[in-house]
């Protein structure tokens, strides 16, 4: 009989899910969701503004709650589970990280565009010296060729990351690409450095891609309740756990607890479920950062241009994560040329 594969799940409902609610989760929402997640058996709960520490801004949208109050609420409501913050160098700083540690986080995920790992050195080293579990996060991995990704992953590992992720921020990858990229990292990184995978469901492949990643050697997988996340959402936790059980993969997550958290706790708190509508599908199709979705919809209404045209144009210009300001500029240009 095949050996049972063990992996660990990081839940991103309270971080990536923030994009889907325009960063408006209240402290009460945060406590209820973190409390429910604490009972599921996920290994790590990630919580912050969708764009990480310091992300609350005009560029990305202001959070409803103060960053530190939000983190404290999550840490208090999930006493049995490690809590992580996301940090994008260029947006968040080491100073933000230290304040987050004072709020009780025990892990950090340091995210850069998939060719820019060296801007994470300062933050990864500092996070290690603060005693955190440290993950390097290579965003928009679909834009970068495998040999380059491998070199960038090695840099993050050399700074001290315990795990490096292939991040499909645009939900643009299919299973073969996931297999190729995850296997390449697994082969190249020292054995003590883990490999992880983060999916978006823009092409409907989040669960299948996550399973492919596990087969290729990933041992940390991101998921969220009901798939709440940017674009068409992330890998839905409850669906993923069920699929893993059927594939002989042990996630450590209780299936019914995850289902109940998704339907009873998260369900009533979201006004608009994530779905693969024409705009979010276009993200995956055009290879564009999933967080752009709601910003593009807003620009579409304001300037009278199709959100799909905006997203496809952004894809052509090879815009990267964080460049939300380009959405308005492109919309203005498209409107002028109509």
């Amino acid at each position, binding site marked *: 009989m095949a050996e049972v594969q063990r992996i660990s799940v990081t839940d991103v409902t309270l971080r990536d899910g923030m994009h889907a609610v325009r960063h408006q989760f209240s402290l009460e929402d945060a406590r209820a969701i973190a409390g429910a997640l604490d009972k599921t058996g996920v290994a790590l709960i990630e919580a912050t503004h969708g764009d990480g520490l*310091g992300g609350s801004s*005009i560029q990305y949208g202001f959070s409803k709650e103060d960053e530190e109050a939000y983190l404290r609420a999550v840490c208090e409501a999930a006493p049995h589970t490690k809590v992580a913050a996301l940090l994008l160098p*260029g947006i968040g700083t080491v*100073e933000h990280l230290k304040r987050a540690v004072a709020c009780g986080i025990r892990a950090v995920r340091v995210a850069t565009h998939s060719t820019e790992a060296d801007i994470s050195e300062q933050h990864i080293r500092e996070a290690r010296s603060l005693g955190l579990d440290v993950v390097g996060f290579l965003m928009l991995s679909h834009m970068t060729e495998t040999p380059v990704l491998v070199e960038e992953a090695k840099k993050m590992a050399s700074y001290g990351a315990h795990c490096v992720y292939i991040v499909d921020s645009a939900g643009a990858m299919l299973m073969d690409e996931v297999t190729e990229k995850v296997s390449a990292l697994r082969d190249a990184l020292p054995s003590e450095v883990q490999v992880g995978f983060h999916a978006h469901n823009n092409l409907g492949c989040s669960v299948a891609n996550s399973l492919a990643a596990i087969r290729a050697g990933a041992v940390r997988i991101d998921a969220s309740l009901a798939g709440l996340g940017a674009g068409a959402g992330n890998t839905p936790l409850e669906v993923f756990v069920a699929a893993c059980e059927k594939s002989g993969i042990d996630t450590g997550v209780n299936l019914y607890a995850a289902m109940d958290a998704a339907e009873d706790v998260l369900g009533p708190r979201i006004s608009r479920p994530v779905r693969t509508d024409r705009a979010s599908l276009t993200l995956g199709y055009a290879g564009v950062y999933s967080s752009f979705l709601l910003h593009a919809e807003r620009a579409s209404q304001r300037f009278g241009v199709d959100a799909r045209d905006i997203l496809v144009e952004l894809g052509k210009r090879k815009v990267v994560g964080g460049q939300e300001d380009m959405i308005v*500029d492109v919309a203005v*240009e498209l409107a002028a040329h109509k």
Partner: protein
Amino acid sequence: MSKLTAAIVGSGNIGTDLMVKLLRSDWLEPRWMIGIDPESDGLRRARDAGLETSAEGLKAVLDAGVRPDVVFDATSAKAHVRHAKLLREVGIQAIDLTPAARGPYVIAAVNLEEHLDSPNVNMVTCGGQATVPIVYAVSRVIGVEYAEIVATISSRSAGPGTRQNIDEFTETTGKALEVIGQARKGKAIIILNPANPPILMRDTIYCVIDDPAPDVFDRVRESIESMVRHVQTYVPGYRLNREPILDGRVVSVSIEVEGLGDYLPVYAGNLDIMTAAAVKFGEEYAKHRLSVVKG
């Protein structure tokens, strides 16, 4: 006409671009280029241009008795802390292009004349030189409660110094939005974009203004346009991407900076705006000092 002599410390992207600009100056003569890597492209170009070069660092050069009138420091914040002390001891004017901020901030388009008597001035960051003038242009018309800027630069124009200390960029730029831009609160974000061909430096500036009445916004727009023309006098490739937009109380401005291509190609407008600002301060300082001496 006599010129002040200048040394450039740091032979990376910024130092080398600075040298090319100083070679054209009527007021400053770049005579020394000081680095730490004898094989660096910057030192090689400096030798070719007839400068005296050293790969031994600033201290060794000062110990050997070299005394420039002005030293431009294009190393790193950490190194500048040491350099600032050395230069103060021997009474040499320091123009700091690192985010060390030992001296007062100078944004060339805004407060050039204020610190001509300060022995050490700090040129903030490329993002600061590009965006603080716009925030100032808004705040001279109407109070700015909050200013936020997003600087996007091509990956190729960001050298190792910038990459290893990206927090210093966001923190120093954010502070300059308050101190010089006069926003009551400031925040800065930087994004590196690896697209090929490389993108031009691009900045978005958001200002939350106290009164968004139409006549106020008209005056804000005029003030911004006049500031853009002013910056163009020393950075010709500085321009608005689109008309400023008012959304509620938020004024949003998008600018682009095309470089002169002195060292790196034109996409590296972020280098140009920084080095052009430093040269502009150096020239004003030279005029000031030479006129004082003559007077």
